[in-house]
C-alpha cells in the first residue's frame, strides 16, 4: 500500500500544475481581490498563478500566515 504523494510522477505534476491554476482562478473572488491594496492583490494573483504560497509571501513580503488568511477570505482554495 502506498500513499498518494509517493505515487506522484513528473507527468502528474504537470497535470496538477494546470489543474491547480484553473481551479484557483475559477474559485477566486476577483471582486474582493481587486479591492485590495496593490501588494496584497499582487501576492494573491501570484499565488493563483503558481500555487506557491511560500514564494508569494517572500516575494511580496507578507507573512505567510497572514497571506493564508487572505487566501481564504479571497475564496482561493489551496491545492497540490
Amino acid at each position: 500500500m502506498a500513499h498518494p504523494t509517493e505515487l506522484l510522477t513528473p507527468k502528474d505534476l504537470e497535470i496538477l500544475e494546470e489543474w491547480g491554476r484553473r481551479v484557483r482562478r475559477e474559485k477566486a473572488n476577483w471582486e474582493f481581490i481587486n479591492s485590495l491594496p496593490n501588494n496584497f492583490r499582487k501576492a494573491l494573483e501570484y499565488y493563483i498563478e503558481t500555487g506557491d504560497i511560500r514564494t508569494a509571501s517572500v516575494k511580496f513580503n507578507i507573512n505567510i500566515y497572514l497571506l493564508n488568511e487572505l487566501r481564504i477570505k479571497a475564496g482561493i482554495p489551496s491545492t497540490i
Partner: protein
Amino acid sequence: MRLASLDTCFLIDWALYRRRNYIIKIFDKILISEHVLREIYSGKTLDFVTELLSKGFMTLIPLTSQEEEIARRLITIALSDPRIPELHETEVYAVAIALTYNTIIVTENKAVLWLKIYYPNEIPQPVWRSIDVLLELVKKSVIKVNNIEDALKIVEEYSIDVKHSFSHIDIRRFQEEVMLWLTQQNS
C-alpha cells in the same frame, strides 16, 4: 518510533481542520524548527502549535551545522534546476531536520514535493501532504470508516475547513488505497 518534521505551509492549513489534534495519534513526536514559530503569531495556528508544544507532542529542534549543510545542498540543487520552484528557509530546514532525525516530511510546499520527485536520492524520507495524513488517520483507525463514502467525507470535511481542493489524481489514489485497506480489514 514514528517522527514527523512539519513546515509552516502544512501547519497553517492543518491548524484550521476540525480534527487537527488527531495528528498526534499517528506520530510519536512532531518536530519543528524555530523558523516555524517566527512565522505564526496569532489565531488557530498559534493555538495549535503552542498546545502541542506544551503537551510534549511537538518539539522545537535547534539547527546545527549538519542541517545548514543539508539546506545548502538542497538549495543549490533547486537553484540549478529550473523545474524546481524556489526553495525557502522554513521548508528547507524542515527537510534538513527530517534527514538528520530520519522523520517523515509533512508539507504542502511545491518545492519540497518537486525536489522529492525529481531527486529522490537527495530526500529518501517519505514526503506526505494532507491527503496522506488523512489516509493514515483512516488506515490507523483514528477516524473510523466503514466504506468509501465515509472516507470521502473526511476529505470533504478537510476541504471545507481549510478551503483546500484535492485533485482528481489524489482523490482517485486515496479511494484506491482506502478500498484496498477496507478489503484487507474485511478478509
